[in-house]
């Protein structure tokens, strides 16, 4: 039987942190004399009270490490629980969202998806806007800590390749949360500060700059304007491009390179693929916009780069309605929905690392066809990928596409049209944000989507965020029998 105590305890701690975070928008609202501050204060108190109760009631005696089962249970429950409590301010605030809308918005925020159901952001109270950005930011941080500290030991989808050298090989999962979280948070925090400053210099006012820095570094995608980044000029857009690119790169590579006298992110093969990939599609679309749609070359480059980066890093800001760019652009953006950023970043999706492995695998297959008796291996960063890792990558990609297809069918049952359902399922699973088509495209909004579809997509976001397997495993019989 699984011991639930440590799981409940950590969930309680996470809720306490969430409650503390609600204090920030409450403060901002009370400074700008908006009555919404009471909503935040009350939601914060409720969340804090429940979190406190859980932590106190399940206070662990001495056990410090989690078993595999507990770790799976923790990752699964924590994201659903935090998303649910984060929805409280949305449901009770002045914008008056329904329960489905509130949960959708909060899940979308905390999973750094960035799909929104709120229209009229430009005149929304500041506390609310800050809360959305803060959810993105916290979600990004939580995911990164999980990806670096927990996922490799759980061996999900080839993540064991990113196991840190020092971690032991026993079955006990020892999240070195404190140590890892410390250095990563520092990098995250300093990039956020730098982005805020840069955005401010690029002409945003300080509040918008903070919100956008939060949601760009976390590859979230919540904006403070209905028009997203189209509201600001090219200077701000280019700053955002850089911020999103950093958010989609493995942040661990930025940890104090001067100490190691090396800049690992210049040599990492995943980062190279990522940058080349983005550059290729950005220039392709810029060319298309310039040659076919007669855009000014400068504008074409800005908009193509911005939106490609935004989709590949799974942020989901938009600088223009690219849905109107024609069939070619729609196809490209649909395909980009599946790519995702680097492993070890805040981005979602299949992730560059797995595409790289698949691409090399296809190459190896091709070579084997020609030389049936030759011996070929799949390399990653000049190291041979062990067989179990390869198989788990294959398993992940298979399940990703099956899940995508399954939920796309579900969305059509809920009443969405084909393009919206296909792109909606893909964007939710990859935590991107906008889909394609008139309804949920970059110029659209999820407000008009049927209620059942919102629940499906919210579930899918968590599923995608937790790399599928850690949720699916909870639904197997052998998990509970163990």
């Amino acid at each position, binding site marked *: 039987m699984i011991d639930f105590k440590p799981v409940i305890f950590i969930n309680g701690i996470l809720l306490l942190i969430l409650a503390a975070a609600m204090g920030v928008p409450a403060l901002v609202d009370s400074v700008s004399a908006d009555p919404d501050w009471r909503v935040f204060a009350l939601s914060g108190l409720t969340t804090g009270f429940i979190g406190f109760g859980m932590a106190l009631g399940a206070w662990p005696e001495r056990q410090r490490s989690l078993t*595999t*089962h507990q770790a799976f249970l923790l990752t699964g429950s924590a994201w659903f629980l935090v998303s649910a409590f984060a929805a409280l301010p949305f449901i009770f605030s002045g914008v008056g969202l329904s329960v489905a809308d509130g949960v959708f918005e909060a899940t979308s925020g905390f999973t750094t998806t960035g799909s929104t159901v709120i229209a009229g952001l430009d005149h929304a109270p500041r506390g609310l806007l800050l809360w959305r950005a803060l959810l993105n930011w916290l979600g990004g941080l939580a995911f990164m800590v999980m990806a670096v500290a927990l996922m490799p030991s*759980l*061996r*999900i989808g080839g993540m064991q390749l990113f196991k840190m050298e020092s971690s032991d090989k026993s*079955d006990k999962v020892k999240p070195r949360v404190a140590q890892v979280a410390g250095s990563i948070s520092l990098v995250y925090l300093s990039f956020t500060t730098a982005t805020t400053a840069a955005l401010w210099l690029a002409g945003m006012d300080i509040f918008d700059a903070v919100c956008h820095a939060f949601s760009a570094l976390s590859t979230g995608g919540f904006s403070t304007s209905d028009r997203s980044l189209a509201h600001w000029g090219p200077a701000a857009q280019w700053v955002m491009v850089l911020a999103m690119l950093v958010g989609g790169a493995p942040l661990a590579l930025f940890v104090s390179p001067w100490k190691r006298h090396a800049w690992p992110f210049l040599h990492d093969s995943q980062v190279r693929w990522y940058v080349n990939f983005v550059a290729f599609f950005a220039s392709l679309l810029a060319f*298309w916009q310039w040659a*076919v749609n007669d855009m000014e070359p400068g504008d074409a480059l800005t908009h193509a780069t911005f939106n490609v980066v935004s989709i590949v890093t799974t942020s989901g800001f938009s600088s223009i309605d690219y849905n109107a760019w*024609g*069939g*070619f*652009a*729609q*196809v*490209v953006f*649909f*395909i980009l929905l599946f790519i995702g950023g680097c492993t070890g970043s805040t981005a979602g999706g299949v992730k560059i690392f797995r595409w790289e492995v*698949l691409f090399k*695998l*296809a190459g*190896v*297959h*091709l*070579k*084997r*066809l*020609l030389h*049936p008796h030759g011996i070929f291996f799949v390399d990653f960063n000049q190291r041979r990928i062990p*067989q*179990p890792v*390869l*198989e*788990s990558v*294959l*398993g*992940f*990609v*298979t*399940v990703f596409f*099956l899940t995508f*297809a399954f939920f*796309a*069918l579900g969305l*059509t*049952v809920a*009443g*969405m*049209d*084909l*393009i919206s*359902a*296909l792109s909606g399922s893909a964007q939710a699973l990859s935590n991107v944000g906008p889909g*394609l088509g008139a309804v949920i495209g970059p110029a659209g909004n999820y407000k008009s989507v049927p209620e059942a579809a919102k629940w499906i997509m919210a579930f899918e976001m968590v599923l995608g965020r937790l790399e599928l*397997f850690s949720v*699916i*495993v909870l639904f*197997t019989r*052998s*998990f509970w029998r*163990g």
Partner: protein
Amino acid sequence: MTDFRPVLQIVGVILCLLAAAMALPALADLIAANDEWQVFVLSGGATLFAGLGLMLGTRTDFRVLTVRQTYLAAALGWLAPCLFAALPLASGPAHLSTVDAIFEATSGLTTTASTVISGLERMPPGLLLWRGLLNWMGGIGIIVMAVAVLPTLHIGGMQIFRVQGLGAGEPASPRTARLGRTILGVYVSLTVGLWAALWLAGMPRFDAAIHAMSTISTGGFGTKDMSLGAYNNSMIDLIACIGMVLGGIPYLLFPLMAQGQWRAILRDQQVRWYLGLMGLGAAAVVLWLMVARGFEPLTAMRHGVFTVVSVMTGTGLVTIDYSDWTGLPAAILFFLTFVGGCAGSAAAGIKVFRLKLLFANARVQLHRLLRPHGIEIPTFNKKPISEDVLESAMGFLFVYVLGFAVLSMLLGFMGLDFITSVSGAASAISNLGPGLGETIGPGSTFAPLPDMAKLLLAGGMLFGRLEMFILLVLVVPSFWDQ
């Protein structure tokens, strides 16, 4: 240096067979007192001349083909007939341009059956027969390839279907000849049976022959613009539906069926999955038709089941214009297009067995998360799947998806809209026929597409039909070394 002579000799033999086949439509036109018979005689003469020239000019007494020669023979053995089969179409009564003729011929031989000809009812019998024959010959061609060539080449996991004593590197044995006779016998008798059944059900004899040929090969060329919908006879629909299901079953199972070993067939996992997926898809579409469209249960069954079977096997016969089935059925049909039939049949697509392999692996991965030291191994038909097979299957799937993505991007680049590009690419690569949307949906033709798009689609059909890797291997530089 590769010896080309055996390759060219095989291509010569294939061309001679093609030339002989052209005599049939010539005869049909002659009987119908139609002047177009001369076109077929002339084209046949030219094809025969080329074929004999190749055969006689390259006489060698080879007994065994090397791996390289097999690849070349497979690729050229499809490419050359596609070009020569276009001769009667280009100079015939339909007044097709060169590109249109090549598109139509490739579409016929690859059993895709996307057409550029409208007004089929007014076309002379010779032309209609030629299209049917193209489907039929393409069907038997791919079955022979799938049984004898692909498994020995280890393409995309097909090595698990390897039959001892067949294929490259092994001299022909009596067993080979017997197996070849069996398959041909099954194919011919199924066609004749289908012909008789369709005729008895009330179809004119000539139309029945053409439909029998295009159904069993999962091709889909008909004699009416509205395909089977023009007959409006539920008996005909039912017979064609059974014919298509049979066309998607591995041919090596039919001898077993003749011996009455039904158990063995139903125990075959590939057949089970094939029928299971088909049943699920059909049930969902039928339900949708009843609920959302208010069809009578029997009418819903008739059209729903037929359409799902037709799309999944890659046939493309149509009883009803399903382009206005938005939402759920559109999504189901879109996904089933990719699934395709069983390996070893005339159907195309990813093939059911690859999905089964990957699914088995994903399941094992899931279980391994909980029991890292368990020794569970994915199985297919109760035999363990080797790593090599798994990697080949995944490599195949990746290249398939990549090919689809690139093709749909290129089509988008030609100026087609999103649905046309995406469904056109899927339809071509899976050898289906009709796409979705207004331009290329069921009941419309590919004629309005730009020439470049038609050539791309024809390339996509060949690419899909030859299981991708046969063409890919040819562009690897090391193929031509030595």
